[in-house]
């Protein structure tokens, strides 16, 4: 294995394919719906109401979307803080997905802000209100998006041949990386803390002072799951060999995080005396069971060493974990949220299509950039057959 084998390299290949065409069409549909939203108000295209004022544009696009974009955070933590250099080839692809996920989550906030033209008030002394959890989330996510673009800029600089700038940047990269692990720790936990002020309106199965810890731990675990998920997808999509030795080991880290999470989650329910809530028939208990089953599934699937070497099992386990994090967030923000009798919410088709369009834009951007920039670990043979 030569040293250059693992150096990131552009993938090359066609950009205008049936896949990218479908993705572009989905983005266009979302664009039209958003036009209607900006002309006629949020209610014209969504089902949100005063009982459920935050729909999937907040809960999926921002809360879940940013958690799904934690691959860069998790891998950077592993590589640079725990010094596991062997995972280095995963840094750039993970970071790119994170960059897109977060940038779109940040942009997506604008669609949901009723008075979006005032959004800069959050950063403005005199308006900014630091006691608000929302303030912390907004400032931290914005800072992280900026940090990630800097963290990722070597890929652009290489492409543009700006070696001097890259060298200078490399000297300060450690600080950027430190910020790139601190900031997501802060806002991923705060996405849980946002719910604390809701008090009794959030069901006891989800309302706890440990929300920040639970959200942080699941964000990290999801980060690892997303890396595995994306590695599987991009290897089949771009017909590249899977880095099985790395993925197997990564899944072990993921399982460790997951086991710790489950211990804390159930310990907390027990201590608060809220465990009984899962036996009270109803949508809350049902969704709690689904959430828990999905968190436990990866542990069962990947318990023995052998399974961790099977791509199919890794893929299914990673998907389960992502879904588990998804359901945890849906449960705490929507299913377990009750602000009084008579309120109902289920996203409208146009509301869903905007979220779908955002995902499509993310995938589209990822495809374009890995073909154009040095991101995926170069693999001579595969790249050649693909051209």
């Amino acid at each position, binding site marked *: 294995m030569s*040293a*250059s084998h693992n*150096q990131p390299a552009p993938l090359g290949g066609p950009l205008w394919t049936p896949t990218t065409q479908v993705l572009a069409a989905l983005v266009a549909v979302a664009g039209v719906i958003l036009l209607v939203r900006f*002309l*006629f*108000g*949020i*209610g*014209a295209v*969504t089902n949100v*109401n*005063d*009982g459920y*004022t*935050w729909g999937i544009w907040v809960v999926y696009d921002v809360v879940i979307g940013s958690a799904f974009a934690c691959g860069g955070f998790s891998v950077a933590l592993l590589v*640079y*803080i*725990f*010094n*596991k*250099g062997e995972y*280095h080839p995963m840094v750039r692809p993970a970071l790119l997905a994170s960059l897109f996920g977060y940038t779109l989550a940040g942009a997506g906030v604008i669609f*949901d*802000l*009723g*008075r*979006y033209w*005032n*959004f800069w*008030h*959050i950063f403005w002394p005199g308006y*900014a*209100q630091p*006691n*608000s*959890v*929302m*303030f*912390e989330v*907004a400032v931290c996510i914005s800072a992280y998006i900026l940090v990630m673009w800097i963290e990722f800029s070597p890929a652009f600089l290489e492409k543009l041949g700006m070696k001097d700038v890259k060298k200078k940047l490399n000297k300060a*990269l*450690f*600080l950027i*990386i*430190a910020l790139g*692990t*601190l900031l997501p720790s*802060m806002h991923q*936990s705060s996405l849980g*803390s*946002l719910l*604390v*002020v*809701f*008090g*009794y*309106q959030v069901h006891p199965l989800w309302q706890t*002072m440990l929300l*920040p810890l639970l959200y942080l731990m699941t964000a990290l675990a999801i980060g690892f799951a997303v890396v595995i998920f994306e590695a599987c997808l991009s290897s089949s999509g771009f017909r590249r060999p899977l880095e099985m030795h790395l993925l197997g080991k990564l899944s072990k880290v993921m399982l460790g995080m997951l086991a710790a999470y489950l211990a804390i989650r159930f310990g907390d329910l027990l201590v608060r005396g809220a465990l009984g809530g899962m036996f009270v028939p109803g949508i809350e208990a049902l969704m709690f069971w689904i959430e828990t089953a999905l968190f436990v599934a990866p542990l069962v699937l990947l318990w023995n060493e052998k399974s961790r070497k099977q791509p199919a099992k890794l893929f299914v386990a990673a998907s389960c974990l992502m879904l588990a994090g998804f359901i945890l967030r849906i449960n705490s923000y929507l299913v377990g949220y009750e602000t*009084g009798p008579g309120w109902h919410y289920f996203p409208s088709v146009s509301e869903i299509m905007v979220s779908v369009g955002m995902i499509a834009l993310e995938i589209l951007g990822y495809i374009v950039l890995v073909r154009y920039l040095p991101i995926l670990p170069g693999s001579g043979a595969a790249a050649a057959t693909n051209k």
Partner: protein
Amino acid sequence: MSISRRNFLKGALAGGTLLATGGPAEARPNKTMPDEALGLLYDSTTCIGCKACVAACKEVNDMPPEFSTEEQLWDTPLDISGKTLNIIKVYKDGSSEIKDSEKDGHAFMKVSCLHCVDPSCVSACPVSAMTKDPVTGIVGYDKDACIGCRYCVAACPFGVPRFQYDKALPQITKCQLCRHRLPEGKYAACAEVCPTGATLYGKVKDLHAEAKRRVALKPGEETKFPRGNLNTHDQSPHTAKAAKYLPQIYGEKEVGGTQMLKLSAVPFEKLGMPTLPERSYAATSETMQHTLYGNALVLPLAFLGALTYVAKRNVKHDDDADDDKK
């Protein structure tokens, strides 16, 4: 590699020490009511459900009518909304004949902002669009500051702030105790027009004394109910017989107290008023935030220091490897 891990732990330990010496953030207690706080006393037992307050509120706040019937002739809101700041709801049971009876009776309840002493909406708002006046205690809203995130809508334990979903340039709407009329020497329109004094305006301390007086009355005892403004006595009182009050003043303790106090003969839970703890949710949430980020960001900065230290060692190693390859 093992050295870096040890160093990481050392860094983490240093951060922990820094945090410990910085001292844990104090639990943030509930906020307290300003001495001259203004508010309302709503007495469900004297309310006759005429909805004069609903109409007056619409008029002085320039809010549009809202329709719930097929012929759109009258303003008929069913709840507070982006078009309605104040409404009278009715509780009914069985034959609903007896006023203020839980069984086979009916009772009214005013739904509007309670002007919490320690409001969740003010704590939640990231841009200071929701504020509590330090003198009057009125919870006010500034649309020019608001970003429309609706954290206040989701956070309020009473479901009060509402949003205009049907507008391209929407606002949050909520009762602001007619603060725009105060400079004109006027007071809350709902209290001004109430024919029975069921909605009474005044300083919270005086309203509280009046509420205590009513609760202590014997059921059936004839008494005078002040109307309009309790401080100026601008209107003659209304004489009626006291109802069988519950021994509870709603808003005295709920989430740290509210500047609107409520009396009733039917349990408040039945009238849509939630049973709430004395500790405000704002205090709980801010205690958590101050613990994590208080003391001039000691915890995040210590963490950042540890991360920078470790990253610097590891990234350097990484760069050297890169250079070797080239």
